[in-house]
């Protein structure tokens, strides 16, 4: 690459090429691209400006490459879509033409312009011109950069031992990588282990899962850590350092799972695996096929507290002497290169829907309770019995969409409940053919391979499907029979049906502790609460954080087949990374100018990665580039301009601000958006065509922590009407906690504005995640109303004040 750098004409002669993309009609339908290109050609250092239909096409890229060679371009600007989408494409094209890829800059005139101002063609064109002006201004100051290559640890961590985690771990282990599988419960198996049969093939769930579970247990490449929690994830793609707390089982591996200890144990509790329908002891195994099969002692239930052994019945009962109350929790430190998040999902708690009477009426059960009841190894040995009298009901009703697709529960479709109910109804018909079965539904969604056939079979077997959910379930207090009341919306008549048992087809929802995993792995979540993928279509198993992948219900509700498919995909994606053995890290890191540094250590205090160390004897700091993740909060903090951020230098950002405020500054909003959340949120607003005012000019920084007070002051000094600083929500920050510094800085600026007698509403701070396009759009609308109230005097005052300040 260094050769390439030497080939290009040096700084003295800037030659910028600008390409304005039509993107078919996506941009050209709103923005007059020809006009934008014409404007671009008048800008300083621009030697050529063209508009073309598809810049990202092969021809489009070839054109850029040809121009770089023929016109000796040394900076390239493409005005098209979001850099989050096609920056890598154009950077590669530049590199192929011998131009350092950091000499490329993008103007986002699609997601941030044409798509969000569909009906304001002139204003959108003016905005596109501004965005190009800003990009060209930055491009003129770009420097060639060299990327650092870091080795990748060829080990993987899989979080969650459900079927997705099991599949991902097995695939990676079979490929030859060492895998750590961390599961918080005593056994792997997850939800699938609780199910009786699987749809649409009616396979026995545990029969097909158990062999996979034992494969995990004895695979030489898999380190299985059950009853364990992840405490900390540090590092970056290829080089994660993970702390795992391995809680003690108090039973050694020699356990032969003979159950003698459990028989001796004097204390009991409901077994969580059987959804509380059976009893377990303080020393137990959750289910017969558990892996590892080693028993475990629930110390919250056990009579022995802390260091006092008051009850030794299990110890005495155990022939192999495997019980050891002296086991201590261990903290393991694992070095891994990739992480697969397969933490699964919770089920909806139907007790919230009072009208269905769950927890008040004993014979109203959930679909998960049904699975345990119908299972031959379950608490009733496979007999579907009414909890009130232990009798097999002669009629049952399924209620669909409990907690799904409704305002009172979750808004989304849980994906599996329709087919699960159809499968369940067939199971009942198989065992007790005379049972009358009603299914109350909103829509039956039988969309997968073999699903429709199963649905047809259920109808043929005599299962009655009734469109229209019951409004209420009423119990006959004497015999605990249940009456369902509602409207059949197909026949337009009211029904009142008596059944012996009601099964609530409960939905799937995000794990309650998703937030912990989200924080540990710096993930994002959709408004539904499931983890967000890097791209919904083209990178569906990659998390936005490099080296982290998603599988199973943690990403969205899905059935077993989809979970396994996704798990194999995630394993393949992780394998691709690890097979390479090394990864290049973007050259967006901080650089110290030692002459300016006076050793005040302000930067070291705000660095979230401890990448800055102090050298006391020289009264200077030192930066560790390998540890720097590139948030830039150090640079924003330094009072002496001694730290610059590569590719996001002060000069570059100030040039963008100046370009944004060149025309009609007093009507404009300058917005600083962080790359990972707010900028992505603005992209999302674009993709969703959410319309907002045209006068906002978004400047991308890697983190909101990069936004130095001087940037905001410069915007006001240039006469901007309002400034928005937008970053990730607390806890979501891609750089651990750099956004706390953002808040501090904005608060300081607010105080300063108040002191100077300025309207502090003109500076707004917002936390917007990648899926909150609506939030961004409404924030800009809100600021627009503030812009309207900012008068000439206020602008002039802020110009003077901030200049003086």
């Amino acid at each position, binding site marked *: 690459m260094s050769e390439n750098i030497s080939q290009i004409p040096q700084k003295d002669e800037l030659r910028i090429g600008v390409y304005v993309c039509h993107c078919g009609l996506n941009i050209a339908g709103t923005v007059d691209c020809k006009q934008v290109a014409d404007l671009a050609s008048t800008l300083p250092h621009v030697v050529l400006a063209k508009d073309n239909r598809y810049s990202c096409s092969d021809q489009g890229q070839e054109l850029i490459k040809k121009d770089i060679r023929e016109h000796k371009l040394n900076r390239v600007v493409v005005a098209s879509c979001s850099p989050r989408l096609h920056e890598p494409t154009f950077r590669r094209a530049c590199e192929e033409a011998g131009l350092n890829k950091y000499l490329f800059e993008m103007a986002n005139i699609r997601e941030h312009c044409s798509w969000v101002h569909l009906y304001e063609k002139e204003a959108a064109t003016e905005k596109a011109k501004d965005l190009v002006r800003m990009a060209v201004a930055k491009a003129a100051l770009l420097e060639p950069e060299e990327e650092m290559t870091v080795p990748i640890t060829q080990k993987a961590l899989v979080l969650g031992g459900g079927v997705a985690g099991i599949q991902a771990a097995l695939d990676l282990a079979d490929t030859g990588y060492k895998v750590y599988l961390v599961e918080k419960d005593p056994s792997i198996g997850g939800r699938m282990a609780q199910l009786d049969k699987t749809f649409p093939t009616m396979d026995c769930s545990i029969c097909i899962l158990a062999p996979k579970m034992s494969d995990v247990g004895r695979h030489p490449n898999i380190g299985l850590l059950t009853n364990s929690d992840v405490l900390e994830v540090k590092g970056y793609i290829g080089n994660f350092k993970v702390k795992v707390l391995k809680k003690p089982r108090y039973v050694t591996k020699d356990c032969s799972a003979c159950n003698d200890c459990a028989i001796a144990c004097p204390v009991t509790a409901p077994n969580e695996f059987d*959804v509380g329908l059976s009893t377990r002891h303080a020393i137990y195994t959750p289910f017969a096929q558990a892996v590892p099969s080693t028993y475990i002692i629930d110390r919250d239930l056990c009579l022995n507290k802390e260091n006092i052994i*008051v009850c030794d019945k299990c110890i005495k009962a155990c022939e192999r002497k495997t019980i050891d109350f002296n086991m201590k929790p261990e903290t393991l430190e694992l070095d891994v290169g990739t992480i697969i998040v397969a933490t699964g999902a919770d089920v909806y708690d139907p007790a919230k829907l009072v009208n269905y009477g769950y927890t008040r009426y004993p014979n109203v059960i959930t679909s998960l309770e049904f699975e345990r009841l119908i299972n031959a190894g379950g*608490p009733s040995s496979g007999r579907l019995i009414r909890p009130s009298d232990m009798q097999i009901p002669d009629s049952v009703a399924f209620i669909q969409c409990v907690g799904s697709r409704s305002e009172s529960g979750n808004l989304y479709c849980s994906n599996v409940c329709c087919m699960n109910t159809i499968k369940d109804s067939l199971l009942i018909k198989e065992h007790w053919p005379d049972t009358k079965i009603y299914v109350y539904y909103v829509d039956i969604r039988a969309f997968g391979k073999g699903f429709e056939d199963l649905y047809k079979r259920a109808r043929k077997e005599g299962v009655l499907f009734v469109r229209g959910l019951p409004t209420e379930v009423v119990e006959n207090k004497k015999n605990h029979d249940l009456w369902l009341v509602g409207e059949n919306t197909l026949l337009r008549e009211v029904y009142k049906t008596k059944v012996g048992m009601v099964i609530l087809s409960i939905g799937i929802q995000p794990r309650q502790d998703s937030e912990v995993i989200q924080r540990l792995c710096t993930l994002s979540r959709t408004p539904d609460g499931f983890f967000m993928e890097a791209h919904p279509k083209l990178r569906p198993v990659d998390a936005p954080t490099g080296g982290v992948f998603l599988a199973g219900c943690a990403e969205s509700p899905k059935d077993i087949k989809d979970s396994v498919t996704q798990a194999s995909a995630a394993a393949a994606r992780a394998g691709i990374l690890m097979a390479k053995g090394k990864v290049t890290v973007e050259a967006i890191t901080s650089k110290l100018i030692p002459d300016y540094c006076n050793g005040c250590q302000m930067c070291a205090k705000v660095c979230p990665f401890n990448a800055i160390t102090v050298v006391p004897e020289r009264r200077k700091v030192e930066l560790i580039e390998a540890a720097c993740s590139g948030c830039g909060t150090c640079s924003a903090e330094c009072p002496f301009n001694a730290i610059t951020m590569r590719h996001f230098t002060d000069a570059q950002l100030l040039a963008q601000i100046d370009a944004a405020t060149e025309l009609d500054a007093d009507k404009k909003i300058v917005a600083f958006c962080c790359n990972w959340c707010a900028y992505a949120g603005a992209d999302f607003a674009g993709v969703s065509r959410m319309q907002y005012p045209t006068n906002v000019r978004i400047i991308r920084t890697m983190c909101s922590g990069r936004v130095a007070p001087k940037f905001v002051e410069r915007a006001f000094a240039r006469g901007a009407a309002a400034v928005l600083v937008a970053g990730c929500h607390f806890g979501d920050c891609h750089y651990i906690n750099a956004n706390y510094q953002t808040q501090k800085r904005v608060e300081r600026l607010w105080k300063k504005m108040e002191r100077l007698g300025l309207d502090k509403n003109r500076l707004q701070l917002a936390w917007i995640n990648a899926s909150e396009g609506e939030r961004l759009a409404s924030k800009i609308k809100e600021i627009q109303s503030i812009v309207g109230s900012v008068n000439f005097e206020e602008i002039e005052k802020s110009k003077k004040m901030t200049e003086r300040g």
Partner: protein
Amino acid sequence: MPVKTWRKPLDADKVKSPKGEVHLIKDRCKGCGYCIEYCPKDVLEESNEINARGIHPPRVIDEKRCALCGFCTAICPDFAIFTTEKNCEGGC
């Protein structure tokens, strides 16, 4: 697995946990309080009675709670407490 368990398990009547009977020899008690302190099920508390040695011996609050671990028997320095298994054949 964060499961809210609210039902009485179906096999609750079948799973027998031993029921203990607590026997106190009150006059032997010297009031050290070990049995009260260490009982994992908090079956005992200090009574208002005064025994031959002039101290308050323990009193059974709720015998049903006793899990028959036998720790009180083991720990009592004065052999003043012991437990036996209740005969529950006719129901307890």
